[in-house]
């Protein structure tokens, strides 16, 4: 309807309330704790507790004996700290192979996306060729299709390659991403044209310019993509459940589901297993937290 103000780019509801010039110098004053900040911290820490406590309970349960966890009311701290559930996980399942498979899957998908998406994104952002916009639109259409719904034919393709129950089966389709291409293209578009022109005058070829001039400049976007992809790969469940049904070929996510089937009521072992399985990604998160935050923020770029 008459909503054109919102699209015109100049409408700002708060414009009339802009502070008078002369106010700003005050802002340099040091912020002192304000009334109510104790209450804020209280609410926020309560929320944080809700977020973190399940993991504490996971660890505490893993350290208890089976007899202890089936007691009512439950004990909070383990009576004696028992680490054997962690060993038991490795004998119950080929847990070591599963962790390796997860690692291969994660590295394969991440490396694939970084290479394939950055190459294509560079061409889409920086080169002229016939059918470019059409092709880019077509590629983006992949974004609209939920990947879980293509698994039937994808399964057939993997099967026809004779790759069922193999490591490549896990990462092959996930090496190609429309989102990654879009994200990296946006990053390439922000770089100044002059850089390439200067490199070209110096005699560098297209690939050389891409590899040693442009790629290093979009490192933050590459890191964001790597983090998103790695997380999705490590956590993926549906696809591995379908293509790799052999326990030795499963990644850890699918492996845990079979642990659930075998150890239905042995919660210490299940908690130990799930803890080990989520630990690698959590460690990556602890060390690369900045990139995780950046990747979420940049996923918002899409809007």
């Amino acid at each position, binding site marked *: 309807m008459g909503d054109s103000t919102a699209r015109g780019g100049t409408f700002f509801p*708060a414009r009339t309330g802009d502070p008078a010039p002369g106010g700003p110098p005050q802002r340099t004053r040091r912020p002192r704790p304000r009334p109510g900040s104790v209450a804020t911290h209280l609410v926020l820490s309560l929320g944080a507790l809700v977020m973190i406590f399940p993991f504490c309970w996971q660890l505490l349960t893993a350290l208890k004996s089976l007899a202890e966890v089936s007691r009512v009311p439950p004990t909070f701290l383990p009576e004696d700290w028992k680490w054997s559930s962690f060993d038991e996980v490795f004998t119950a399942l080929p847990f070591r192979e599963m962790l390796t498979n997860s690692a291969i899957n994660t590295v394969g998908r991440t490396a694939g996306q970084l290479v394939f998406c950055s190459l294509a994104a560079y*061409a889409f952002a920086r080169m002229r060729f016939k059918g470019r916009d059409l092709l880019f*639109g077509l590629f983006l259409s992949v974004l609209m299709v939920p990947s879980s719904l293509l698994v039937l034919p994808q399964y057939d393709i993997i099967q026809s390659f004779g790759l069922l129950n193999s490591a490549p089966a896990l990462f092959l389709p996930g090496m190609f991403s429309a989102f990654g291409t879009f994200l990296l293209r946006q990053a390439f578009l922000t770089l100044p044209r002059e850089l390439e*022109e200067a490199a070209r005058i110096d005699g560098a070829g297209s690939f050389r310019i891409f590899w040693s001039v442009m790629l290093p400049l979009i490192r933050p976007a590459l890191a964001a993509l790597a983090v998103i992809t790695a997380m999705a790969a490590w956590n993926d*469940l549906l696809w591995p459940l379908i293509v790799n049904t052999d326990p030795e070929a499963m990644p850890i996510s699918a492996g845990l589901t079979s642990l659930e089937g075998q150890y239905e009521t042995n919660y210490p072992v299940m908690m130990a297993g799930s803890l080990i399985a989520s630990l690698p990604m959590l460690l990556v998160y602890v060390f690369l937290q900045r990139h995780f935050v950046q990747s979420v923020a940049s996923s918002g770029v899409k809007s």
Partner: protein
Amino acid sequence: MSVFPATAAAKAADRRAARAAGTGPAGRDQRTAYLFVAPLGLGFALFYFWPMIQTFYFSFTEFGPFGGHTWVGGDNYARVVKDVTVWQALGNTVLYCGIGLTALPLALVVASLLNRRGLRAVPLYRALYFVPFVTLPVAVGLVWNWLYNGDFGLLNEVLGWFGVDRRYWVSDPSTAVFAIGAVMVWSTTGYYLILFMAGIKGIPQDYYEAAELDGAGAVRRFFTITLPLLSPTIFFASVICMIQSLQVFDLIYIMMGEKNPAVGDTQSVVGLFYKWAFMENAQGAAAALAFLLMLLIAALTYLQFRLQKRWVHYG
């Protein structure tokens, strides 16, 4: 496509480049460009475009017990539309979507609390709230199953202090969907929190200061400044939330198992698709279901983009 404004920028850059070179693109440059695009293009063709066509084709066929597809016309679609479990799964999925959306107001409240001037430990809070999102969903499902456990679970114990009766949260059909939905909210709030915090950072602090000088309280500032100026981000988040909820699978699969009496009451559309395609060998019907879900997601996304004009401000 006009949806992507950056295309215009790319075109302008092209024109500049062409002018600088004094010519249009040479044949060799074109070939180089195709070489850059080819690896991804081949991968997409093999693993995405061909499967899309195949899924569409499969949806009109039946997979025989000895392999091979026989054409059955619209039978699969008729089956999907008539099947009660499909409608139940769709209802559940819509419910998950609705429950999942409650993560947005939660994240919004936390984000505006974290936006208080001079608040300490903001990065720490942010980091902690994000942990559930990073954690392996299968592990999350197992942990919550344990917390929800009817006999020895901690939740029953804690609720017992307040006089709430014991329950088998995930095997009771009346609570199972909500129990799973709560875990979804728990694990996605951190994601939306970071999204909103990034959005709030883009709102000039002056607005808040001016409003404060005019005597607007925290609640008033939230509704008159944060909410309208953050509406593009909230819109994006709600689209993401909807698309994700419609595809939910992992948590339900892990939390319900196969023998749970509430399986039918919690099954999502993707869960039903998995069951049909890989456990009951009804691939044709599964493909039809997949195709319909695709259409549904596209339609809902389109609808959201239409509705956004009514409530989203683009500054």
